């Protein structure tokens, strides 16, 4: 056992990178669920974003355009879900599962000729002298733009949901769509926009895996991150800052357990391997001991006649 082999600065930096895809997907899904829609297609939208971002980045040489394409790709796929559930009034659970399966297949098809290609490097944000500050520099200022974007989206989501009229309307639609409809709000339009936002965020999260975290394209490379993001939203009781905490906890402990294994710590590996799931769930369940609950209309189909 040699704990000195673990570099805490690199560990924390790696934790932030590992948490970012989950964070992005989860915050998108949070907005969708606060609007009363349960989209189980997060995994499908992530992998579609991953492949769209990868293809565009390789072809244009610009990761920035790639990430935009990833957000667009995820949003376009989520539009399919919006059509099925908001226009065709299909069951949300079934449509979401179908979206995941469809996304996995579609991305495998699109990515066939991109296996084994190395994408252009995504540069870290040039923050100048800030990145040279000892300890804090590499932890806080040494990241790529998407990490900061993810944090900004969390802060913005929180602010919008808590303080603005738009947030109030969105929550009203999610809590009681009949009442919101009676007040004259366009339930379907608001939900469709929320679904699009969720798709874009999931797409960004997926592209973070294919362009920065791995970086390469491999079929099925999100490997279940979308499902973790979905679970995180529930355990975070639909609150943005808890999603952030949950994502960082999960990413952090995942990294920590790998580091502990490498350092040869004498804790059975099975416990280490399950620790990210267990710790994240326990912490969030304890936090959600207050009176928070799911949005009232979550998962229910809305029809104006109803």
């Amino acid at each position: 056992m040699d704990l000195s082999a673990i570099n805490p600065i690199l560990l924390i930096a790696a934790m932030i990178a590992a948490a970012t895809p989950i964070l992005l997907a989860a915050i998108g899904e949070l907005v969708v669920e606060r609007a009363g829609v349960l989209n189980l297609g997060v995994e499908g939208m992530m992998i579609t974003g991953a492949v769209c971002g990868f293809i565009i980045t390789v072809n244009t040489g610009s990761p920035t355009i790639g990430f935009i394409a990833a957000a667009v790709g995820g949003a376009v796929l989520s539009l399919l879900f919006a059509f099925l559930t908001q226009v065709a009034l299909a069951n949300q659970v079934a449509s979401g599962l179908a979206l995941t399966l469809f996304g996995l297949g579609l991305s495998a098809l699109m990515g066939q000729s991109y296996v084994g290609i190395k994408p252009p490097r995504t540069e870290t944000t040039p923050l100048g002298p800030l990145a040279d500050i000892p300890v804090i520099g590499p932890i806080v200022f040494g990241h790529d733009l998407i990490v900061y974007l993810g944090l900004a989206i969390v802060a913005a989501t929180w602010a919008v949901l808590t303080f603005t009229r738009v947030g109030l309307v969105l929550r009203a639609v999610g809590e009681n769509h009949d009442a919101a409809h009676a007040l004259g709000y366009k339930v379907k339009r608001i939900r469709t926009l929320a679904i699009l936002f969720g798709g874009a965020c999931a797409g960004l999260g997926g592209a973070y895996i294919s362009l920065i975290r791995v970086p390469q394209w491999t079929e099925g490379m999100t490997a279940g991150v979308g499902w973790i993001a979905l679970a995180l939203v529930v355990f975070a009781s639909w609150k943005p800052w808890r999603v952030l905490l949950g994502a960082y906890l999960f990413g952090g402990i995942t990294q920590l357990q790998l580091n502990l294994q490498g350092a040869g710590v004498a804790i059975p590996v099975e416990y280490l391997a399950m620790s990210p799931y267990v710790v994240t769930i326990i912490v969030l369940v304890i936090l959600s001991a207050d009176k928070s609950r799911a949005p009232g209309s979550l998962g229910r189909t809305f029809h104006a006649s109803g």
Partner: protein
Amino acid sequence: MKFTTLLASAAMVLGLGGAALADGHEKTKVGFVYVGPVGDGGWTYEHDQGRLAVEAEFGDKVETVFVENVAEGPDSERVMTQMALDGADLIFTTSFGYMDPTNNVAAKFPDVKFEHATGYKRLHPNVSTYSARFYEGRAIQGHIAGKMTKSNVIGYIGSFPIPEVIRGINSAYIHAAKVNPDVEFKIIWVYTWFDPAKEADAAKVLIEQGADVVLQHTDSTAPQAAAQEAGGVITFGQASDMGQYAPFPRVSSIIDDWAPYYIARTQAVMDGTWESKDTWDGIGAGMVGIGEISDAVPEDVKAEALAMKAALADGSYHAFTGPLNKQDGSPFLAEGETADDGTLAGMNFYVEGIEGDIPQ
């Protein structure tokens, strides 16, 4: 027509159709069950190359089907059952975790032949097992790794603590330590065969902790990408050549060549000569290939590696040759003694010098 009548007649038609297929059908149907996607660039990719080779060899006389991303465990049983019901004559199940499901399904379909990769259970006369002696390739990797490491720390990404993986770790360690007694192995178990993000994370952690060689026993090319990103770290292709990362960081590879075996077994089913057996071939029989050793490896090391490959192939050298002790210091093999296949097949201990415990 009533619904029940419809169902009954549909069942009749199916039954008749099935019977007609059973006695006189022309095409031999071969099914493959894969643990990952065919595009993983590693393990499943090579099995699928074997499937394509079967198609190329027999043309119209054979029909192949495959199902990818099949989870190890109960779900695989459903997939195999469906394949057997759909008229497959021969089914290859290509991951260790399919061992019990394969035998369970084989009991229900005595006329269908089952071939399970990397397992050891043959409970029924219609089950064969096959595997490759990957540990021979690991010996060569260990030699190159031991010679080339500067930090004397070699990282190893393990999938599951099963004999096949432990054998590989031992073989690599024995040969690395032989040429470099200071070498240290850092082993991380990721508990997955295929999860690029997790594999990349594990590789990064090993590199951050000082490893300048990363060996992987997982299926994707993600660790190669991580090593390339880090720079100055060498890797080896696993299961497939992973040549897109050559000449550096990937300096050589173990390539699984299943095609000759798949062709031979399909032929045996066609000829009616198929029987249950255990096949375990290595470099000599061509089931384990060693990918080109790139120019990043010094000439003399490359020559030694190739000499070892030749000796392993002709049987003059065994990768587990004594004197060797187990991790706890108890004797494993005496001077000049080689490990028998039974010991190798069930290997559940580290050899002396490796630190850490095998998860039980």
